[in-house]
């Protein structure tokens, strides 16, 4: 039992700290796929470097208990630094930090936090005299359990810093169990007290960062960090550092609602997905309308309700309003009702997760829930006087995607563009809006003829129409280009380098991506090959393994969300199931001993079979258990392959950390390139095909050796 504590702690601690780092990172850098890619990618990269360097310098396992404690302290320090990172970059609470700042911060913070875990992996293997299967087995189990504990127990109940303190206390206890000494006990008590102090300072630290705003409340919930600030009468809700609602702000709420509702002013059923506060009030101005308001995060309403003025609260409590706490897509899958108007008030598609609301499949799903002449409306960031290339591509794509689902699409120009789509009539003329406002006595402050005459100026409409029409691109679930273009637009705010980089990937042919990633993988492998010769060849499948499993994991998560919606608990379970798959695979390799070459071959075949199965399943309506099964199988094959590849490396005395380092290096590349480039540019099916080709190459490379071995025996 005691033998398993240290590797278990490694997995438990590393995944817990990684999850908490990401939780703290996102509010500071307004998380999107690029930011996630940086954090996850650099985390894996530094882990890899730590493992490889430790292998080179052959550190002593006696340093392990202290290294665990130092890692804990670094975890705390890392979270503190991230909380105050705005001061370092010279930016205020509400200022965007930008892509470059995210890049360098991710690089530095993951170095601080992940590098030691790479070293610890090596030391664990050294501690157990090369029993890598044992270490990998219990590391995987620890990581799987950490995923469940952090996602399902700590995050819903505690703040980020409190969760870190709780994990730290558990870790200190486990360190004592494995490596008891009196000196260690004293140090642990001191560290425990430090963690208890840390527990209490989350909110005060947030207050300092939020200055000069008056921070009324903060809540770290399942879907991110919610903060409420107030200046004068202006109440603002932040979700992961981005403004989710600011009240009063009639301009925002009115444009979200009225352009759509005026098309069907006698609507009885209106579905509002996200963005409810001001919008519900505006919808209720139409006497016949009943609102179904779908908001994924119950904490948003729960927290805001406390601070809302009574009259605003009354709108949410009106008998004409029904609130459901579900992912918008999951809601539409689940319910059968039809609506005259569906208003989509979700943020711009900066992540693949939000992009699910901008795809052809979603619009078709929405259409199923519309009456025959129903209207769907969505609002996206734009510009009044000039739209740059990135923005044009994004807007054009939204327009053409809507056009594949509806026969009519109209767009209101302005700082934000309101897209209206329907199979029935649409009228966005000034006269029409003016007559509806007058006839039905709809009381508005900014959607009024005195402002609309400028916004609907024919010059602006004509110019916008030119930009929007003719885009050949369609945003699809399985080829989610929308978030790629939106990210490119966001990047253009911070300088053109980042925009150009994304734009470059948008232009290149798909096959080039595969060659590029293979080339980078080969470049990573080259120094080892040059140094150790063919002895290091079993490391190549590990590199491909890291790349494949990371890509496949993220891809299945994304696929799951498009099929079944974003369901927090299920996503947490999916991630953990992969880890438990690794555990089972490693265990299997202990139980059934195969010659390494045969084992590698078998695992490659399993990988190819899984990828082929995934490829075939992607476009199908599959039962809910299928994505779980795939992730478990990927984990199983990966766990088994990891052990199979490591044993010949050990036999050749190439160092305990080499295999682990190569696995993480492959994962690093996948984390950076997968969600940001592969999925949107190639689409999910072609990404799987790329993985298949890559794995087939791995398989083909080993067949001659197998044949030779067979002849030899």
């Amino acid at each position, binding site marked *: 039992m005691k033998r398993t504590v240290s590797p278990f702690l490694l997995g438990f601690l590393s995944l817990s700290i990684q999850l908490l780092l990401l939780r703290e990172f996102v509010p500071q850098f*307004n998380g999107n796929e690029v930011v996630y890619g940086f954090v996850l990618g650099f985390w894996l990269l530094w882990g890899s470097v730590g493992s490889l360097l430790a292998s080179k310098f052959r550190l002593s396992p006696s340093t392990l208990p202290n290294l665990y404690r130092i890692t804990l302290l670094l975890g705390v320090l890392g979270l503190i630094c991230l909380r105050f990172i705005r001061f370092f970059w010279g930016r*205020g*609470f*509400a*200022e*965007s930090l*930008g*892509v*470059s700042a995210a*890049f360098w911060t991710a690089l530095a913070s993951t170095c601080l936090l992940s590098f030691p875990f790479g070293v610890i992996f090596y030391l664990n293997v050294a501690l157990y005299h090369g029993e890598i299967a044992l270490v990998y087995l219990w590391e995987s189990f620890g990581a799987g359990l950490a995923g469940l504990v952090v996602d399902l127990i700590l995050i819903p109940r505690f703040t980020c810093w409190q969760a870190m303190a709780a994990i730290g206390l558990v870790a200190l206890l486990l360190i004592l169990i494995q490596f008891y000494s009196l000196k260690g006990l004293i140090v642990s008590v001191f560290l425990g007290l430090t963690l208890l102090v840390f527990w209490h300072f989350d909110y005060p630290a947030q207050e300092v960062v939020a200055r*000069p*705003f008056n921070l009324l409340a903060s809540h770290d919930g399942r879907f991110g960090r919610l903060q409420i*600030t107030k*200046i*004068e*009468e*202006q109440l*603002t809700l*932040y979700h992961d*550092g*981005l*403004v989710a609602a600011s009240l*009063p*702000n009639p*301009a925002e709420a009115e444009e979200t609602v009225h352009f759509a509702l005026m098309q069907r002013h006698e609507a009885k059923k209106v579905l509002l997905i996200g963005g409810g506060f001001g919008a519900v009030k505006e919808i209720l101005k139409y006497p016949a309308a009943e609102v179904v308001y779908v908001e994924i995060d119950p904490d948003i309403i729960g927290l805001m309700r406390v601070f809302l003025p009574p009259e605003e609260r009354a709108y949410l409590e009106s008998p004409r309003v029904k609130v459901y706490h579900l992912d918008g897509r999951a809601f539409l899958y689940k319910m059968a009702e039809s609506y005259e108007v569906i208003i989509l008030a979700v943020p711009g598609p900066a992540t693949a997760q939000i992009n699910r609301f901008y795809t052809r499949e979603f619009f078709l799903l929405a259409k199923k829930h519309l009456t025959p002449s129903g209207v769907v409306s969505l609002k996206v960031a734009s*510009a*009044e*006087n*000039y739209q*740059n290339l*990135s*923005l044009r591509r994004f807007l054009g794509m939204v327009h053409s995607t809507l056009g594949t689902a509806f026969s009519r699409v109209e767009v209101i120009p302005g*700082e934000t563009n309101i897209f209206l789509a329907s199979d029935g009539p649409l009228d966005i003329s000034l006269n029409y809006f003016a007559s509806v406002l007058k006839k039905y006595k709809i009381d508005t*402050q*900014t959607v*009024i*003829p*005195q*402002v609309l*005459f*400028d916004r609907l*100026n024919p*010059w602006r409409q004509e110019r916008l129409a030119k930009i929007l029409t003719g885009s050949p691109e369609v945003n699809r679930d399985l080829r989610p280009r929308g978030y790629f273009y939106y990210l490119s637009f966001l990047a*253009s*705010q911070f300088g*053109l*380098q*980042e*925009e*150009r*980089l994304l*734009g*470059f990937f*948008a232009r*290149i042919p798909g096959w*080039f991506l595969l060659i*590029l990633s293979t080339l*980078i993988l080969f470049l990573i492998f080259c120094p080892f090959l040059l140094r150790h010769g063919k002895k290091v060849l079993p490391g190549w499948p590990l590199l491909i393994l890291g790349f494949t499993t990371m890509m496949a994991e993220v891809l299945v998560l994304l696929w799951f969300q498009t099929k079944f919606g974003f369901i927090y608990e299920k996503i947490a379970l999916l991630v953990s199931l992969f880890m438990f798959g690794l555990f089972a695979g490693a265990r299997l390799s202990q139980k059934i001993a195969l010659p390494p070459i045969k084992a590698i071959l078998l695992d490659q075949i399993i990988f190819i079979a899984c990828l082929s199965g995934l490829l075939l399943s992607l476009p199908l309506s599959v039962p809910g258990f299928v994505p779980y099964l795939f992730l478990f199988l990927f984990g199983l094959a990966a766990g088994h392959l990891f052990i199979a590849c490591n044993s010949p490396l050990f036999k050749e005395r190439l160092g305990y950390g080499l295999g682990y380092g190569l696995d993480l290096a492959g994962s690093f590349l996948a984390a*950076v*390139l997968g969600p940001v480039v592969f999925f949107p540019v190639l689409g999910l099916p072609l990404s799987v095909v790329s993985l298949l080709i890559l794995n087939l190459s791995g398989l083909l490379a080993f067949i001659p050796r197998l044949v030779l071995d067979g002849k030899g025996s």
Partner: protein
Amino acid sequence: MKRREFIQVAGLGSLPLLGCKLFSAPLSPFSQNQPNLSRVEARFYEKLPDREIKCNLCPRFCHLGDKERGYCGVRENDGGTYYTLVYGKACALNIDPIEKKPFFHFLPGTQALSLATAGCNVNCKFCQNWQISQVRPEQVEAFDLPPELVASNAQKYSCASVAYTYTEPVVFYEYMVDASQESRKRGVKNVVVTGGHINPEPLEELIKVVDAIKVDLKSFSENFYKEYVHGELKPVLEAIKLIHARKKWLEIVYLVIPTLNDDVKMIRQMSQWLLKEIGPDVPLHFSRFHPMYLLKNLPPTPISTLEKLHTVAREEGVRYVYIGNVPGHKAESTYCPYCGQMVIKRTGYLVESFELRNGRCRFCQSPIPGVWG
């Protein structure tokens, strides 16, 4: 794909690992529009030895070597001669109500042909037009619109004025001056919407050919200018004084950004300064901020803050104080400072009633300063 393109693509493809900032612009096959640059010699610069020049247009006084561009990105030294690259190269063109600029005392209820080229000589973190102001001219889609066409289009679309706006018109100075002269010939007036970062000599010349200037006073604090504008306050104040001294119609807009430039004490000082230097009759607009560009995560300005600042400026003696970007607010309208009657009723960008006769209040006959027709 040609061999050369392939080499570029392959070269670029390997760069992501090195970090975004290492990415080299000239190699990129992406987003560079075909250069559509003018080559008209710029004004207000000094030739220096070794083909260097010094730009005297704005307070940055860019000192440039051969082939270098100024901070604005639209003026280039080529072999010791300084060129403007955006002469006649408009990238945004609209017909806007003059109230949108905002000018409230200048030809109310008329339309302005509004145009801009790329570039700006400051870098405001809250810029509404960052997609054209913070880029080089090669990075926008511009079209040819020579000064004569500006003037004829204004006439064609019944615009009473041409507005040089959206980006900082100082950076396309030569184009603005020539277009203003052409417009004048056709009886069309010219208005400038500027941040006021311009040196006295070019400003003097500009004043001669335009009819009204709106200055965006972004704060009354040097620190704010340094941090959020990347500019200086002092030259802006000097420009305001000069415009007023030359009796050119002037309006001042102050965008109130919550927590950053909304300090009551500072606004009181600013109002006192305005009163002392340019008198009580220059309209002062307090505009509501909406989250924008790099300050997207700020809330909109609370209406009560705007009202508080409005009161402060009125208390200090500024006669025509407005609240902008709040359609329907009573402070959008003009009131006679003598009898208190509403003389111009505005809602949004629309003038709903106009109670001036020959520039005088219809109720008490007191003069209301402005350019009324």
